[in-house]
């Protein structure tokens, strides 16, 4: 078999093999069962609680959880703004990089606390090492936020009737210290020994073999890259992200990075099975997600490995596939695989330039973000999936003429209204903002000429991709877009805030309300949710919602571009 395809299969198999035991471990961390790291980490956690003045035994209801989460995030945002706008005089700035403008700092700060990591700057020239350290912090705590709040939803799905759903700070600290910290450490060390730099020295000056003098950017890259993938953050240390040969030096590091980023999103599904003692439900959810993932992956792999048909016509050999924007050490298969993995999961790191992918591949990347729950980002991917489950339960309930119930709790008008608002928010944000930017560009193409790097359908796709990525809290881009302008910084910032916090508030509210309801034991009349039939139903709801909402927008971009290839 082709070594490139074999690599892809093995990388995926490794993720699943590692995610199953990790899911069990995460479940144990959530419900405070014994694990072998307790000896080292119990004192660490206690120190966290003591220094922060937190009582981890104080149980909270769903509203208190959300208040704690939002307050914490607000503090981070203000802190991020302060550092990013004052980097010139703060320490750890060997290359004398400038401070960010207020709008860029606004965008960057939001982007990193929202787990998006959309970057309108380049790491080499736009940020100091202190700024990078703060971003390392944000990558830990934004991922920890997502994991902790998902644990709250897991607790609310239990059978008992309660309004007490654990302590947010307890879950947050444990997610960071017991899940993110140890794995990041291992990954970072593997990367360092494979050639990823870890130093606080500034740019180096070398004379290359042909005699030209160039500067080489370095920095504390390994620490950054490990958590960027584990937390599905995705922001690059360098401008080229994980396509950069120092951020991702070889095929082995590439495999580590792609495995790391898919790990927790898949493990979370198995953690759900462990916490609720419903293994079968976990496998049904995993099955639906995997089918969706494969349906996006396979056409992309095939398209990219075939190469650009227009270039084939020029008479050269394209046995390697479409190589524009891709690195030789990864090849087209591993690049195409990464591009779909990073978009279905909300990582948004890249190892090849998405802007240069074939139209169908670009469409699949966007579809991954539009659905945003085939695995999805750490924690929040499951929350998005939860909304689709609620919708599917309701629709199936209506179809068979029964009161819709999920895990023994009745779903009524209030929960349905919240679910519908959240399900429609994502298309609303993407389509309205793309419409505004398209209107501006179309009515003044000379003023906004710097925006687009490509003409025609593909130029429109660059704008659609940017807002899809912001709203999915993904952070990758069609990087041809000239995005460090007031319009893009502010508009993407607003989209990111709304698309991060509302889809957290909605599912937590639904779960909190359901947890308070009376538990109805399972009977012959109960709609079973851990069956393949129900899995199919959820898949249909996702496909119809995404297809109906986004099909017209995709037709104007990638689909039109596909048919324009002569």
């Amino acid at each position, binding site marked *: 078999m082709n070594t490139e395809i074999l690599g892809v299969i093995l990388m995926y198999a490794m993720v699943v093999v590692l995610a199953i035991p990790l899911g069990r471990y995460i479940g144990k961390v959530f419900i405070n069962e014994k694990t072998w790291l307790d000896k080292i980490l119990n004192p660490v956690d206690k120190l966290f609680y003591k220094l922060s003045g937190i009582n981890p035994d104080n149980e909270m209801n769903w509203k208190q959880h959300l208040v704690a989460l939002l307050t914490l995030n607000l503090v981070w945002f203000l802190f991020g703004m302060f550092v990013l706008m004052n980097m010139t005089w703060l320490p750890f700035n060997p290359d004398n990089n400038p401070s960010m403008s207020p709008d860029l700092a606004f965008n960057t700060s939001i982007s990193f606390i929202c787990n998006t990591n959309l970057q309108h700057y380049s790491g080499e020239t736009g940020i100091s090492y202190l700024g990078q350290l703060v971003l390392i912090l944000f990558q*830990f705590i934004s991922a920890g936020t997502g994991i902790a709040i998902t644990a709250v939803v897991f607790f609310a799905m239990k059978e008992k009737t309660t309004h007490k759903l654990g302590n947010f700070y307890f879950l947050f600290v444990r997610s960071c210290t017991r899940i993110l910290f140890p794995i990041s450490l291992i990954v970072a060390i593997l990367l*360092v020994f494979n050639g990823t730099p870890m130093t606080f020295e500034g740019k180096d000056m070398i004379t290359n073999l042909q005699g030209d003098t160039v500067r080489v950017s370095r920095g504390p890259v390994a620490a950054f890259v490990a*958590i960027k993938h584990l937390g599905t953050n995705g922001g690059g240390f360098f401008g080229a992200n994980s396509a950069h040969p120092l951020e991702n*030096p070889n095929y082995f590091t590439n495999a580590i990075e792609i495995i790391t980023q898919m790990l927790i999103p898949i493990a979370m599904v198995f953690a759900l099975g462990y916490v609720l003692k419903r293994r079968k439900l976990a496998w049904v959810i995993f099955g639906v997600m995997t089918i969706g993932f494969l349906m996006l992956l396979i056409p992309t792999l095939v398209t990219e490995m075939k190469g650009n048909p227009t270039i084939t016509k020029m008479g050269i050999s*394209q046995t390697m596939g479409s190589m524009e924007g891709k*690195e030789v*050490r990864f090849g087209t298969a591993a690049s195409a695989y990464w591009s779909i993995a990073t978009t279905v999961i909300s990582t948004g790191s890249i190892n090849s330039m998405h802007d240069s992918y074939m139209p169908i591949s670009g469409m699949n990347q966007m579809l991954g973000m539009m659905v945003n729950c085939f695995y999805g980002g750490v924690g929040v991917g499951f929350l998005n999936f939860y909304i689709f489950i609620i919708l599917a339960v309701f629709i199936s309930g209506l179809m068979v003429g029964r009161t819709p119930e999920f895990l023994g709790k009745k779903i009524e008008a209030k929960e349905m209204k919240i679910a519908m608002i959240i399900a429609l928010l994502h298309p609303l944000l993407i389509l309205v903002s793309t419409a505004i930017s398209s209107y501006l560009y179309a009515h003044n193409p000379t003023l906004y000429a710097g925006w687009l790097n490509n003409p025609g359908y593909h130029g429109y796709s660059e704008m659609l991709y940017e807002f899809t990525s912001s709203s999915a809290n993904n952070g990758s881009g069609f990087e041809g877009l000239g995005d460090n302008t007031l319009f893009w910084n502010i508009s993407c910032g607003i989209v990111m805030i709304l698309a991060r916090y509302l889809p957290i508030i909605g599912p937590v509210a639904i779960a909190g309300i359901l947890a308070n309801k009376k538990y109805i034991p399972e009977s012959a009349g109960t709609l079973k949710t851990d069956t393949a039939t129900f899995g199919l139903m959820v898949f249909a709801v996702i496909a119809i919602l995404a297809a109906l909402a986004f099909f017209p927008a995709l037709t104007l971009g990638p689909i039109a571009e596909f048919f324009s290839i002569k």
Partner: protein
Amino acid sequence: MKSDIIPAIRLTIVCLIFFAGIYTIVILGFAQLAPNKGKGQIITQNGKTYYANVGQSFTNDKYFYSRPSAVAYNAAGSGGSNKGPTNPDYLKDIQSRIDTFLVHNPDIKKSDIPADIVTASGSGLDPDISVEAAKVQVKRIAKIRNIQEDDLQKLIDQQTEKPLAGLLGTKKVNVLRLNLALDNIK
């Protein structure tokens, strides 16, 4: 909300110390044991040092070319061309790169040119080319340097890096190592 602000600020400071401070320092400690103390892998030849993983610009006909780059191999920055696959200007660029390549390599067939040598990489710093991209340049270099074509073929075979564990990924040639070995021949 009010009662949450003080713990939130204190928790943020503790996280800053732990995740930005201690975490980074621990990895920095491990880096001291890594090749070149974690400052990037280097190659030294004739008293000059180069970064093994950072691609260099090779445009001189006596060297094996590296891939086109959107940042001209200036590693102070990085990035790809971000040209869409149907962009007419981009397609013109590719055509002119093919034509230029044929002018400098008159003895080869057009269908032997592999795509990677006329397309830009994602980082603009790609250190590698495909084996085909090295072999297609043999005739030109043999002529200019007065070396047997067979010797060059052998050199490329020596410098070819196999897929990971012989099974996974692509075969490739590091252009810098290849050219350093080429300089050593005479």
